[in-house]
């Protein structure tokens, strides 16, 4: 039974996955063009999980930017501060919102010219979500 249990769990997970289109989906994705002369911009989106377990996003990467970081802006005691998010937990069957003045993706140093940005969300070494979005003004 001990040997069978992991297989059963995997099979059950497989059933769950086949019923849901994807464990993690993105909506309201906005990535602005870097401001004139700037090599940095922000990305906003809503991550919604259909998984029955929390998903921890450990890294975000994009072929169009040298670096992508997850940050959170906060106003504390009248000060605007920005904290890096080491990892981002999307709770089971729940959503996390990235929006102006709060959590955001910081996209640094664009590589070449492009109109569409691809974002890969990693949980450890696995890409759990890829999002393609046209740059907005």
């Amino acid at each position, binding site marked *: 039974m001990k040997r069978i249990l992991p297989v059963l769990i995997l099979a059950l997970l497989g059933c769950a996955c086949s019923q849901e289109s994807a464990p993690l989906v993105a909506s309201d994705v906005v990535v602005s063009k870097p*401001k004139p*002369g700037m090599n940095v911009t922000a990305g906003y989106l809503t991550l919604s999980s259909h998984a029955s377990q929390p998903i921890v996003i450990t890294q975000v990467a994009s072929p169009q930017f040298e670096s992508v970081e997850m940050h959170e802006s906060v*106003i504390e005691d009248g*000060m*605007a501060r920005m904290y890096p998010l080491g990892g981002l937990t999307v709770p089971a069957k729940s959503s996390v919102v990235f929006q102006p*003045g709060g959590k*955001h993706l*910081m996209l640094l140093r664009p590589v070449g010219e492009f109109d569409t940005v691809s974002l890969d969300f990693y949980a450890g070494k696995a890409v759990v979500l890829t999002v393609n979005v046209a740059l907005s003004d």
Partner: protein
Amino acid sequence: MGPRNIFIAAVAVTAIAFGTWLSFKVASPPPVPQVATVLPVPGELPEFSLLDHNGNPVGRDVFKGHWNLVFFGFTHCPDICPLTLQVLSSAKNQLAGDGFTPLPRIVLVSVDPERDTPESLAQYVAYFGDDNLGITGDLTQLLKLTNGLGIFFEKTAGDAENYSVDHSAVVLVINPDGQFNALFGAPHEAENFVHDLPIIMSQQ
């Protein structure tokens, strides 16, 4: 009721209506700012010597002749700074749409003079509208201005290229006499500026 009585009644009704209107008019308090804090006595700015976004030397007189909405931020800031400048730009556009004059000038004072050159500031402030002013320059001179206005900023951990700057999030109102007149605390909403700014300006 004879014509004389009708005349007296008409005069009485008119007098009561006028009196009621007058009492409302006198009783209505003048509008007050909803969000902004107005200084009881406008404060003089400290002396400083920095550069505008065209590379020209500027001191405290640069604020004179305009109503200035002054924000302290930096161009590598991806979220709060463009968000705040968009709010100020939107407020200015709404005031312009209402036919309000004079329109305030939006000023970005860089708290990251290491990376924010006049050239980069010029492109950046122009993105958020016409007639905006960017100020940057020597750190020691910048501190004269910020310390004099109670503005705090601090570079955070990172490498030489990639670091952030924590900074005061207030927007200051500097009047056409170049005096610190009022301040708006964060988070900023365009409608607060649209409501409060004409009141602040009318009290000058």
